């Protein structure tokens, strides 16, 4: 008799369908809804479920992980909404400078309500609020992307070193992560800003230094799991060079959770930048930063509520967009630990 167990067991680790397989085996699928197909299959025993899955996959031509994930992502309305929000805001950030005037140009109209000329009104210095929001979004996106880029590079490097070499390297690096996690991020950020000063670059450095911990942990966990798998052992014993093993076998395995962390991380970085600006330790005026604009509006809320609403909404839209995309990716890629 064919030993199904063994076969499906192998499939779970190296097949291209790791996601659906895991879901069907009854492992928690992460956040959000189970599709009807998943919940039906979950009712079956493990053995039967894997076979059922195999047979469902037989129906059409075999789909790659990317197509499969995209298919599931597309069905998630909230994720698509997030993608649209992010797309629009990124487009606005890119073409914004061609649309609006200099955000620091001061008109005579101070704290004016929205008009045809000034869509979002003007602020306490007579600057066009719309132009400032557009430039604020640009800055938020720039900081969000830069922080996440730096943070991901640090996180992947540390996690990989830790997970691959283990032993002392792992102990030292992970204790460092523990210690940094023991300091609430805003406290650490405030201390860093106190030490290195204000400004856009300082904010990027500060936020990147406080943000890489989760990525490092996730990547390390991925390395630890993959390193012991038989096919990696096999590759090692047959003399495949280390960098190739990592590149071909290990990195693809940690890729999915990292993608989710990147999407969520951009949103968090944007939120954190707004907080630092708001507290007066972020970018220096006259830089158009959404957090600064909100801080500046606080004394005028009653007469000029638009000065809080528009930058506030811009932050919410930015963060919400990346959060929804991240959640959608988490479901579509079936990442649990990110």
């Amino acid at each position: 008799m064919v030993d199904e167990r063994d076969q499906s067991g192998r499939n779970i680790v190296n097949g291209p369908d790791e996601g659906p397989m895991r879901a069907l085996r009854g492992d928690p699928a992460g956040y959000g809804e189970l599709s009807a197909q998943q919940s039906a299959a979950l009712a079956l025993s493990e053995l039967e479920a894997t076979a059922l899955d195999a047979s469902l996959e037989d129906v059409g031509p075999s789909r790659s992980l990317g197509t499969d994930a995209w298919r599931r992502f597309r069905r998630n309305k909230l994720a698509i909404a997030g993608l649209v929000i992010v797309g629009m805001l990124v487009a606005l950030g890119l073409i914004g400078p061609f649309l609006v005037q200099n955000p620091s140009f001061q008109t005579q109209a101070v704290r004016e309500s929205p008009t045809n000329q000034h869509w979002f009104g003007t602020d306490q210095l007579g600057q066009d609020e719309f132009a400032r929001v557009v430039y604020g979004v640009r800055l938020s996106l720039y900081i969000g992307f830069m922080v996440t880029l730096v943070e991901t590079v640090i996180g992947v490097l540390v996690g990989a070193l830790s997970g691959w070499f283990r032993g002392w390297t792992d102990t030292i690096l992970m204790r460092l992560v523990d210690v940094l996690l023991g300091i609430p991020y805003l406290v650490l950020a405030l201390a860093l800003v106190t030490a290195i000063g204000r400004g856009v670059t300082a904010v990027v450095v500060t936020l990147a230094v406080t943000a890489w911990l989760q990525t490092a942990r996730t990547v390390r966990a991925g390395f630890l799991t993959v390193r012991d798998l038989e096919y990696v052992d096999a590759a090692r014993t047959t003399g495949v060079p280390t960098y190739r093993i990592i590149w071909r076998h290990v990195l693809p395995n940690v890729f999915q959770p990292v993608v989710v962390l990147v999407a969520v991380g951009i949103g968090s970085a944007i939120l954190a930048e707004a907080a630092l600006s708001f507290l007066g330790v972020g970018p220096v005026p006259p830089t158009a930063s959404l957090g600064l604009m909100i801080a500046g509006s606080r004394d005028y809320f009653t007469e000029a509520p638009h000065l809080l609403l528009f930058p506030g909404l811009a932050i919410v839209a930015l963060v919400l967009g990346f959060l929804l995309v991240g959640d959608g990716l988490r479901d579509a890629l079936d990442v649990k630990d990110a």
Partner: protein
Amino acid sequence: MISYILRRMLQLVFVLWAGATLLFFLLFTLPNSPGELIAGGANRSANPVVVKNVNHKLGFDRPIYVQYGKFMARTVRGDLGESYRTHEKVNDILKERAPLSLRIAFWAIVIEILVGVSSGVLSARRRNSFADTATTLVAVVASAIPVFVLAYLMKQVTGVYAYQHNWPGWMRFPALGFGPNEWYLWIIPSWEQLRYLAQPVIVLASVSTAILARITRTSMLESLRLDHVRTARAKGLSEKKVIRRHVLRNAMIPVVTIIGIDFGTAAGAAILTEFSFNLPGVGSKIVTAASQRDLPIVLGLSIFVMAVYGVASLLVDISYAFLDPRIRLGGEDG
């Protein structure tokens, strides 16, 4: 269990020591010398002689390891240092400000757990109902609103607009000041105090509540699918008993972990909340000190926040161990 708690306490001591050390070196070895900061004030063009004198007076010209030794010696004795601008002692600042911060944080956590967990459970139980969709949506949006935006909105609506338009008394909350400072048993606010406390507590609780509701919902749905729930049904237990005994308890295990992890974010949110409501707490003081680059104050207060956070996490881990015997008895990982 005892050995687990001891091990965990040792770990806390290590993290506190290493964190304090890290912050110390971060603040006191980076390019600009403290003397320059103090002597030069904001304009940064300080007279070199003055800088030298200030540095000497405060001991900043000694080798860094000597400074570190002195810092550690006094920190271990419980002296968190003093400002070199105003010579305020960090310990005095804490005596004055910590109670308010701790009270607000305590009530925010109570609300977070009550509202977050129960709405998450309900959401999971009535999956795909209107209430579930609404809870999920509100939770997603709430976790994207910056704390300070929420704080201002709340202040303007229930603190200003409500007074201007004569809303009923229970919908009006004073937007200025922090109340008569009346407490029963140190932690329970008087009615008048509650009116001042409500807004910051709600704002501080909101983000964590949203996160917790989402996590609880997910965790409940995951627990519902575990094999032992099927066993419980096969035993002939009523659906109510299955949920109460076999789903809830297991679902709470990751929820408790998240509550612990979330304290870090909540500490950040507390800083923003205090700052937005102009509350004389520890958080707003850290912000002021950071923007004035008052290094010892930032360092001292940060160590305090770390310690509170560490102790809270420790408590969470202990309750976690109570919930999950696999941790308590040092078995394999869950």
